[in-house]
């Protein structure tokens, strides 16, 4: 069965947990690179270096 079919067969609590887990999986994949790019574009490399 594909993931969507499997999802439909799960008890409701598990369906919710797996969907939330998937949402956080995507959030986690995106938040790292987004922050790195934001820091580099806003502050630049070497920001915060001790004098």
């Amino acid at each position, binding site marked *: 069965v594909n993931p969507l079919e499997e999802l439909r067969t799960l008890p409701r609590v598990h369906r919710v947990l797996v969907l939330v887990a998937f949402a956080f999986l995507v959030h986690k994949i995106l938040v790292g690179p987004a922050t790195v*790019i934001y820091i580099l574009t806003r502050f630049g490399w070497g920001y915060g270096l001790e004098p």
Partner: protein
Amino acid sequence: VTLLAQPTGQAPSAEVEALVRRGDRLWITGSLVAGLGILGPVGGAMLLHAYRLLRRAQRHGATIRPWAVSIIGAMWLVDVAENVGWAVDFFAHDTELAQTFFSGWGQLFDAAYYKNYNALSAGGPAAAGEKAFEVMMVCFLLPMRLATGIAFLQMKRWGAHFMAVTAWMYFMFWIGYTANMSMDFMNRFGTSLFGVTGWWVYDIGFVAVPFIVIPYLYTADRGVMEAGH
């Protein structure tokens, strides 16, 4: 490990077995790469490719591990890999890389990583309690969670059980961490760009992990908790 049974009663061909093993390895590696900061999209692409391999194996008759287990396990491993960033702060806070990104991150979310960074005896954030939680995570919880995440995805029984144990540890960790950081609220979040709301937007993905994994494991059927060996 994930070839649990064949619906037709026939043994899967060696090619299909190899496909499952490749897909499995790639799923685990992709999950770990996906949590390594800028490499997130690379890990995401690896996960997509692993998904395709596992689906192809499934169409050729292999019974693979439930997708729910794959998604929960991937989320867990991405979270573990993201903590590697904290290990950089712990072991390499004097490097240009750490000072650039932690000071930048501190300016955006938590000023303990910005104001007086590297000023305390152990280096890193200028919040003593923060360092204690860093030791807890980087030296103990992170390696334990890494091992259990891989074992869980390999459907080993100890993986599921140890995941429950370490998820409870992670739950307690967050109770302590959030209480500790609140003690110095004005200094840490009153002066960061996105404040406490920004911190939650960034960190909700970490804090949520035990709240998803614990109820899942305690209500999962016996196939998840008692499969493998």
